[in-house]
């Protein structure tokens, strides 16, 4: 049962991730990415990471995907006319990633059931996923949390500066 659920989510993730790069229409790619995000969230649920699953849907499916769609609309991508074939780079990167996965799987015997049932499910279910994240994030990981706000500040300034530059250029031209 548990294996079945894992293989369903993993299979759909692999399938839709392949479709994202294989489909010629960028809007279809984005929609396929949406399906992938939802299934990744489902995988998080089986890993007892419920808060992460909710974030996966809210941030990735809700916000990041909108960004992707806007990029597609912004660049006015039509079918395949702007695609570059990068077979060599892709093959090298894929080889590296594949080797990494093989190493990870070889160093530890593969046990799906123990992987999906987290090592301490009792702790997580007793306190609640969000509570345990909150307690850790705002005490032990206080500094990374504040750094995250700085990074977001930088991202926002970058976005404003870049878009302002684009606006000025489009006005002058």
């Amino acid at each position, binding site marked *: 049962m548990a294996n079945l659920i894992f293989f369903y989510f993993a299979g759909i993730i692999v399938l839709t991730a392949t479709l994202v790069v294989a489909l010629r229409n960028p809007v279809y790619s984005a929609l396929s990415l949406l399906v992938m995000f939802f299934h990744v969230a489902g995988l998080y649920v089986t890993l007892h990471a419920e808060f992460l699953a909710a974030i996966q849907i809210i941030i990735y499916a809700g916000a990041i995907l909108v960004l992707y769609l806007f990029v597609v609309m912004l660049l006015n991508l039509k079918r395949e006319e702007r695609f570059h074939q990068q077979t060599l780079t892709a093959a090298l990167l894929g080889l590296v990633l594949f080797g990494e996965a093989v190493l990870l799987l070889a160093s530890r015997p593969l046990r799906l059931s123990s992987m999906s049932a987290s090592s301490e499910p009792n702790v997580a279910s007793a306190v609640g996923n969000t*509570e345990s994240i909150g307690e850790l994030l705002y005490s032990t990981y206080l500094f990374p949390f504040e750094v995250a706000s700085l990074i977001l500040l930088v991202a926002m300034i970058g976005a404003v500066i870049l878009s302002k530059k684009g606006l000025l250029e489009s006005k002058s031209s």
Partner: protein
Amino acid sequence: METGLDLLTAYLTRYAPILLFILLALAFGVVTLALSYLVQPKYPEAEKLSAYECGSEPFSDSRIPFPVRYYVIAMLFVIFDIEVIFLYPWAVTFDQLGLIGLIEMMIFIGLFVVAYIYAWRKGALEWD
């Protein structure tokens, strides 16, 4: 090993209502479309099948480049969305965190207020 599997199955059973909800939502869309497709009278004409654009003739492709302003708004939305996500576990554990938790969240929000004022002053929120 076996207990772990049982635990997982019991845990996932709690998600049955959500699964049911997803299935119902999907079925609603599919059934509505399929039913209207089956029931509708079909007298296709060239004029009827053309894209409807408020009664006027469509004059160009719908895939036109969008203004960059939409992208800025989306970017700002993502950033503030992440801020709100950070607020949620903080609000849940507010009792345990105490004064320090309040102070650190005020620093966090303070930085976002700086970002917000910056975006406002630079005119990123204006549409002109």
